[in-house]
């Protein structure tokens, strides 16, 4: 039997749009999306560090951009993506240990991830403004 026969006209499994979005699935998708966002977000980190190395005037320019309303919004999203991806990662560590696969456990973990990430992000920003 050749490969052509194997890839013949067989029915395909249903894709995302068929399924009702459930919390664990949304958390899984968000984990990947936040990961990809953080990937490109590192450009902001690199720019900030290189600006700091370049000198005071250029650093103040970049810092000014990051301190603007738009900059703060982007950095707020960056913080949430970071925290969410980290909590999602901790959830994966629990699964790696073979735990947390039960119906209740995985629902609880999914809720803890989203509630925890939003709460922790807000707390971090409150602290950030407080120490300013």
């Amino acid at each position: 039997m050749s490969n052509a026969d194997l890839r013949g006209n067989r029915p395909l499994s249903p894709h995302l749009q068929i399924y009702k979005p459930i919390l664990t699935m949304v958390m899984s998708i968000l984990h990947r999306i936040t990961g990809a966002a953080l990937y490109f977000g590192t450009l902001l980190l690199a720019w900030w560090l290189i600006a700091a190395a370049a000198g005071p005037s250029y650093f103040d320019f970049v810092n000014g951009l990051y301190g603007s309303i738009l900059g703060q919004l982007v950095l707020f999203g960056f913080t949430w993506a970071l925290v969410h991806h980290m909590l999602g990662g901790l959830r994966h560590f629990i699964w790696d240990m073979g735990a947390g696969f039960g119906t209740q456990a995985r629902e609880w973990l999914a809720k803890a991830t989203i509630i925890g990430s939003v709460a922790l992000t807000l707390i971090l920003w409150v602290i950030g403004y407080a120490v300013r």
Partner: protein
Amino acid sequence: MTDMRTPLNIVRGLGSAKEGTDHFWKQRLTAVANVFLISFFVILVISMQGSTHGELIETLRNPLVSIVLLLVILSGVFHMKLGMQVIIEDYVHGEGIKFLSLMANTFFCVFIGFGCIFAVLKIGFGG
């Protein structure tokens, strides 16, 4: 037909790519490191809120801060390279464009990594 091995025999041991769980393990290893390293970085950034360029440079010149910051960059960039590789392999199906995407992924991560490392070293060495 030169290969007389059965499909099962091909994937036994380290599998057809001969890498086994290497990718998975490195991904998890850097993930564990990132939990601590990125937490350090977030705390560092928060503690530097409202400080001037001079104050930031003074903090980054502390060797301990420099070294941990370099580890943040190293572990973070490695982790994101592995992660983006999985995303590309999942969604990009054409052989040519997949190959180019995987190369671009490596180039981007190396560029970000070395850009950040250069900046931290320059500040750390007082340049």
